[in-house]
């Protein structure tokens, strides 16, 4: 259970990126965070693991308020929060395996990570995760030898290697083609289902957000202006988030895919039932 209370971020330049944002995400819920560029989506998810220091407000995971933790406590809290990035943010010159194992850095002392002697269970877990994301044969390749979709799969494996209790996902599909985007979103969603993992997914593509998430938050100029089910995101809501625009074309497209996109979520649910 993640609770954000009155989160405010004012940058040194005086830009107010977030204005008093309050929201709570129950465990197992996958939330899509949409909004125009510069609305504060990235700032919001970075305030949760304090890659960006919030100016005021609280971020509570369970009982502890992340904004009040000391440096070493913060490191321990970050272990429990997996993050997946736009443009993958893999360490390009390390191997796939090293990238996945870097998810364990918070758990091992420096000398073990320096000599790359991770505990065997971490390595086993990394192999299992690479298998899970479909990269079983690529463990020894260098990260920069992979395609965009494959790199994002490594990014997902790295986040899961942390044994996270929450996933923060920042524009996972921004540099991927439409088909790969859907595959990556489906993979993230499936994994969240398997593990009952809550996730906050920053995403530009409204149709993708509607297809794959259970709840949508709309951010505009640092303020939360929409919070509801994907189906409740109508033209009025889109205008509230993004401003005036003729949304009919986009709505029609997503309407065409309506049968498919319902089956998308339902299929995952059905698979879930089988498992």
């Amino acid at each position, binding site marked *: 259970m993640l609770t954000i209370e009155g989160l405010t971020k004012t940058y040194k330049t005086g830009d107010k990126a977030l204005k008093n944002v309050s929201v709570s995400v129950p465990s197992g819920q996958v939330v899509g965070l949409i909004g125009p560029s510069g609305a504060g989506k990235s700032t919001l998810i970075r305030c949760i693991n304090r*890659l960006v220091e919030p100016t005021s407000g609280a971020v509570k995971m369970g009982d502890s308020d992340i904004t009040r933790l000391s440096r070493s406590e913060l490191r*321990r809290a970050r272990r429990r929060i997996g993050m997946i*990035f736009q443009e993958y943010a893999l*360490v390009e*010159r390390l191997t796939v395996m*090293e990238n996945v194992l*870097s998810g364990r850095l*918070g758990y091992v002392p*420096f000398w073990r*990570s320096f000599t790359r002697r991770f505990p065997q269970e971490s390595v086993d877990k990394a192999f299992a995760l690479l298998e899970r994301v479909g990269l079983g044969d690529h463990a020894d390749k260098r990260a920069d030898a992979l395609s965009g979709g494959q790199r994002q799969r490594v990014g997902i494996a790295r986040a899961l290697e942390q044994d996270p209790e929450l996933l923060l996902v920042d524009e996972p599909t921004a540099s991927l083609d439409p088909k790969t985007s859907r595959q990556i979103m489906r993979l993230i969603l499936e994994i969240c289902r398997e593990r009952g993992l809550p996730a906050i997914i920053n995403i530009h593509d409204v149709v993708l957000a509607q297809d794959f998430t259970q709840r949508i938050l709309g951010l505009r100029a640092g303020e939360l202006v929409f919070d509801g089910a994907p189906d409740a995101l109508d033209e009025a809501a889109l205008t509230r988030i993004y401003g005036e625009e003729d949304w009919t074309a986009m709505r029609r497209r997503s309407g065409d895919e309506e049968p498919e996109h319902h089956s998308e979520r339902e299929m995952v649910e059905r698979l879930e039932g089988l498992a």
Partner: protein
Amino acid sequence: MPVATIDGAPVWRHRTSRQSLLIWFGWLCLVALFVFCWQVMTRDTIWAFVEDAPRQAADIGSRMFPPRWSYIERLLLPLWDTLNIATLGTVLGIIIAVPIAFLAARNTTPSTLIVRPIALFIIVASRSINSLIWALLLVSIIGPGVLAGVIAIGLRSIGFVAKLLYEAIEEIDEKQVEAVRSTGASGAQVIDYAIVPQVLPAFFGIAVFRWDINIRESTILGLVGAGGIGLQLQASLNVLAWPQVTMIFVVILATVVISEWVSAKVRHAII
């Protein structure tokens, strides 16, 4: 305002007439200054000597040829010393330069107000003093010999390596750093996993480049008594043994060509 309206149509020029005139005047001043400085500098030149120069050069040239090939036997040991001075000096410089580079880089320094300026000062101090002058100081402090040469080369290398390395560190992709930090990694682990892999190619390139420069610099350190082939050069110059001097030049040239070839190969292999 390079956009003007002439006959109702907009016209665009790179510069306004006024700017063009100013730039032209600036160049004129520069040429005038050059001519003036040239006159000041050559006031004490004795032109008779300059006219004589080609004859003098031809005279020394004729005495330098042919090189005394047999002298090479006595050059091999000093040459070995020279290579050792360059290599050990480079290693010494790198060992000291790496931590300084991390302290000087804006994105890894522990404190921008105190530590960074100190690190930058060390870099500037090391770079501002030529290795020949370092050697001169060190010979009078620790006495003549190879050790003074090694330390002189090392001290001079600190600034060069640290400067290029800290610039490489400042240019890394911060997203990779952010990603590693978000896993709960400690500061040392972030450096090891996110920063070192990104600067490693630059580091090897810088190290080999500096080694290559140091080979050239260490050939003259003997002039001030800091060991190596320069000692032989000075001895030969003192007794006007021109064929030996030529031989030393040949050996230095060959060494530099080989070191440059090696450094090009190594850099090519890394990148």
